[in-house]
């Protein structure tokens, strides 16, 4: 039994939160099948789906392929890079989340052959599948930024929080030093699709706030380098951020895409409509271009006419089913849909793929549909955030309409991020939320 929030609040408010609720979601009988389902990737999407499928299917063989032993709670990276959490906050073990009776192959996929319905791993294991779920995540193309390498992070005023928990912690070292000594700060984002487009903004707001709280507001000169002529993909949010930036004295620079850095000279080169432009910096936050992994791009599963330099999987935006191969789905960052590269999106996407996959195995048609839901608790300072939720159409879709205003900087939104977000994420991994 599923309730939306309004129904829930009405019930709870009326004191009627009685027995049907306690049972939670009433599950149908497991569908009997002998199908072999291969899931590429044990990140948020792959793990959550494996757990949900194992409860819905009886007799299915589920194989999950991922070489990474550490599971990363990526929404925590922004907090680590602001000194609010240690690196360990975002790290757990992949194995602890996977359901029993699932085979975990601790290797990377090397080849996908959608015609032969076979995945080959780097170790040479061949996996013949009946259904394939591509949930590999994306790769950060650090080499695309000339002069940049990961060993520079934390030194010479260079931060790169996307690169992982340890790099996020090193980013904090450089950012903390900057918040004390001041100078010019450049906060960049790539021109490709990217995971959590709010994170570059959060980092900007947080470092500004930390400098301010330390009494160094007069020392820092912060610039947000937007990749195009907006600050966020959703126009109404972009406009709100523009106002907040104005209020905080953060200068936006539009259509500036980072191309190269000279760490010694602390100078960055940006591609702009007026040609390359150089900017000096005391702190720079680098977020590189993001693409589908090579194994996906070489498999012929990518869009041929969209995102050709990025290679996201060609799926139907509502069902996340591959448009040419009905036995393949894509989930999470690697899916070729216009929005949805966040953990919150995954939470919405997983039940859709689960529904269509289980329905197919039961000889029915699936009914669930993904509307592009993406959510971002956009932190504007330590202690406040805006709970921004939107869909494919750039409509705001607030979870608590009339209660938690999406474009207001609120303490309660911060509380939710601090207290409930990781817990909800973990519950999602276990297939329980």
């Amino acid at each position: 039994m599923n309730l939306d929030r309004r129904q829930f609040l009405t019930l709870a408010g009326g004191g009627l939160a009685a027995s049907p609720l306690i049972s939670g979601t009433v599950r149908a009988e497991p569908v009997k099948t002998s199908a072999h389902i291969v899931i590429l990737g044990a990140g948020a999407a792959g793990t959550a789906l494996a757990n949900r499928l194992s409860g819905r299917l009886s007799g299915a063989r589920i194989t999950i392929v991922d070489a990474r032993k550490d599971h990363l709670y990526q929404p925590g990276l922004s907090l680590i890079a602001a000194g609010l959490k240690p690196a360990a906050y975002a790290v757990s073990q992949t194995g602890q989340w996977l359901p029993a009776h699932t085979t975990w192959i601790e290797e990377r996929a090397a080849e996908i052959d959608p015609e032969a319905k076979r995945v080959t791993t780097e170790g040479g294991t061949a996996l013949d599948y009946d259904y394939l779920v591509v949930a590999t995540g994306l790769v950060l193309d650090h080499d695309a930024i000339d002069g940049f390498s990961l060993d520079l992070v934390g030194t010479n005023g260079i931060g790169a929080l996307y690169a992982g928990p340890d790099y996020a912690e090193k980013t904090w070292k450089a950012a903390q030093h900057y918040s004390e000594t001041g100078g010019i700060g450049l906060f960049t984002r790539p021109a490709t699709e990217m995971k959590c487009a709010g994170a570059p903004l959060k980092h900007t707001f947080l470092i500004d706030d930390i400098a301010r709280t330390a009494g160094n507001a007069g020392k820092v000169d912060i610039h947000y380098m937007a990749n195009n002529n907006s600050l966020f993909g959703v126009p109404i949010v972009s406009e709100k951020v523009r106002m907040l930036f104005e209020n905080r004295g953060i200068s936006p620079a539009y259509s500036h895409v980072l191309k190269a850095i000279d760490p010694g000279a602390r100078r960055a080169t940006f591609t702009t409509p007026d040609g390359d432009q150089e900017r000096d910096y005391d702190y720079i936050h680098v977020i590189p271009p993001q693409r589908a992994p090579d194994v996906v791009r070489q498999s012929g599963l990518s869009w041929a006419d969209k995102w050709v330099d990025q290679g996201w999987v060609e799926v139907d935006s509502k069902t996340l089913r591959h448009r040419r191969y009905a036995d393949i789905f894509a989930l999470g960052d690697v899916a070729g849909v216009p929005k949805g590269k966040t953990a919150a999106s995954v939470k919405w996407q997983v039940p859709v793929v689960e529904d269509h996959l289980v329905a197919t195995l039961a000889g029915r048609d699936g009914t669930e549909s993904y509307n592009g839901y993406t959510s971002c608790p956009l932190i504007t300072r330590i202690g406040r955030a805006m709970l921004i939720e939107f869909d494919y159409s750039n409509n705001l879709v607030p979870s608590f309409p009339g209660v938690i205003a999406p474009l207001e900087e609120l303490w309660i939104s911060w509380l939710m991020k601090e207290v409930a977000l990781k817990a909800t994420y973990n519950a999602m991994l276990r297939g329980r939320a």
Partner: protein
Amino acid sequence: MKELNLATLIAVFEEIFGRGLFWAMVAVAALITLAYLYVLIRDRAVSWRKFLLAQISMPFGAILAVVFVHAMTDSGFRDVGGPIDLIALLAIAALGAIGMAILVYTVQSLIGRERGT
């Protein structure tokens, strides 16, 4: 939140505190409530002397609850940004106050000597 039902909420709370601690806390809260009901039924009346002390303890419970939430979440009073924040703050304070009052009343009744009503 896509699905918000009691099962989801319980799953989230179990993740926040850990399954053992969460259910231990639920058990403690239930025990205190039961003990409170027990002393009410046992004494067949509200002891106004005890109730007075319980009332005096309420502001301390309220302050403790707010300080606890602030400390746990790296935030403070300056972060209140809208009406819902004020409501949340007052709700946290109210929960702390009521919890403290029930606790103080029950503890007095269970261990204190009955000195008339």
